[in-house]
């Protein structure tokens, strides 16, 4: 499933190198220390195909990215957004208007308006909101 999605993505968007198990573990540890939810499994599996995606002004964050100007680090972004305080959702990516988020309590991926946090789309799986925010 993840591989099919990745194959679809790699044709049209910028893909980083795959994330290692160690990078995923390190990101989860940091998220836990900040009181943030861990990476959802489906998303973590996708990062193992490519550790971050880019399509012009759209960014899907990667795990434990250092010195990358093309791909943004997920923990750094969430840490800055929540100011190091606990939260019950996680931002996985963004464009100019929307956040792609994951809410573990309802096990849902959502596209939410950045100003109002009103959801535009809510799904159990990653594919639909991911393709939508990446404009595919």
């Amino acid at each position, binding site marked *: 499933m993840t591989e099919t999605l990745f194959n679809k993505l790699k044709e049209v968007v910028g893909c980083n190198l795959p994330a290692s198990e160690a990078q995923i573990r390190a990101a989860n540890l940091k998220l836990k220390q900040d009181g943030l939810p861990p990476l959802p499994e489906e998303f973590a599996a996708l990062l193992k195909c490519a550790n971050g995606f880019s*399509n012009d002004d759209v960014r899907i964050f990667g795990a434990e990215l250092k010195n990358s100007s093309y791909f943004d680090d997920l923990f750094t972004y969430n840490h800055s957004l929540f100011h190091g305080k606990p939260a019950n959702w996680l931002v996985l990516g963004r464009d100019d208007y929307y956040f792609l988020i994951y809410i573990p309590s309802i096990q849902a991926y959502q596209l939410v308006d950045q100003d109002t946090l009103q959801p535009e789309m809510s799904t159990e799986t990653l594919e639909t909101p991911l393709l939508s925010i990446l404009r595919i």
Partner: protein
Amino acid sequence: MAYTHDITGMNAAQGAHLSAEKNAELLKRIQDLKRQNTVLHQGSVPNTKSGDEIYQEILDSCNKFVSTPTDDTENKLAKVLEENNLVLHSYVYDKTSQDKRDVARMAFNGYVDRPPEFKLSPIMREMKNYPQKRMQTKPEDYDLSASSVWNVFKQVPEFAATEEKIKKGLALYGIPPEKLPELQCKDFCFILNDQYRSSGKDSAKVFQEGYKARFTKQFIAEYENEFRQGLMSMKGIRKDYVESLISSMKRGITDMSKSPYWKPEWSNQPVVDVHHILNIKDASVREAEGKSFASINSYENMCFIVRHPQHNAMHALEQDLNNNYHEDIFYNREIDKKYIYRIQPPEGVKCMLGFNTFIYDRQKLGIEKSMQQQQKREKPLSEWRNRRAEGPKHFRGNQAFSRNGYDRNAF
């Protein structure tokens, strides 16, 4: 989100907040560039701070100014910016409507996203979801001038050209013509997206190319040599990356991660972004000058800039501590005016590759295209040599050179 700070005694005068010393330094720099006949400025004094440290210093000064707006914090911010060749500007605040912002952004990108259903107007939602309620209308039944939203769209020539397609879309959904004034910007986006999108895609390419791609092509055609030279002087830069980037820019593309030639080693190479010198959010400033809001996407109002830390620093005043974007509005009771503050590159800069590396606008400096001219010179000169080699029939001696140098019309 908008934050209003009620203040008195601030420097809130409209325009650039630049000290006399800095002004003189910038003027001298321009004179030096003119003398050297180049538009590339590379600061000779090495900056002791890293780009990240400068960015953090700017961010801290912005946060201090926004949380405690006084003459002191404003002057300190202006000084930190000056030291790093950036300029603090303030404008009388006049909110740009969301419709104008959205239309300008779509024109910049060249595509129209499919809006979510909850953002459509009640009439559009009804006609979309209940085909039985649709009226039997023809495209010619619609007079778009009745819509205030269309009057915003049509200020962008490329959108104005979509008038017939929009009328066709309105007829397709059977929108009652008398309901046109009730349609919102997102309804027009929905119709445009519907008319132009290819199957299976959320975005519709309405223009051949957006203003961003157009600017990119024009910039690289004008400044290829200086851009290459400026990038190549950066620490850790890779030649293969620079050449691929320039080649992509000639096709209007700046995001190299999408390139078929993308190499993972490039992930730490500098990303260049197109930046609006006067922010899209401040298009009303243009309108106050008697121009259309759509001129925010003009060639003159755009420049290239390295994404981090320079581009992020440029937007540091619009970011709060949580990295959210917002607008800070300052109210000066003494003169009863609202102001906004923005960070901009120095006047006449077309590309900012570092806090001390710029490419200036050739036209504004009145400097000719030296490198390109040289290339042009080489061609006829070699032709002249070839002709000479061919024999006396084609040999024209020194006629090709005037007293003042090369005479392009000699051949």
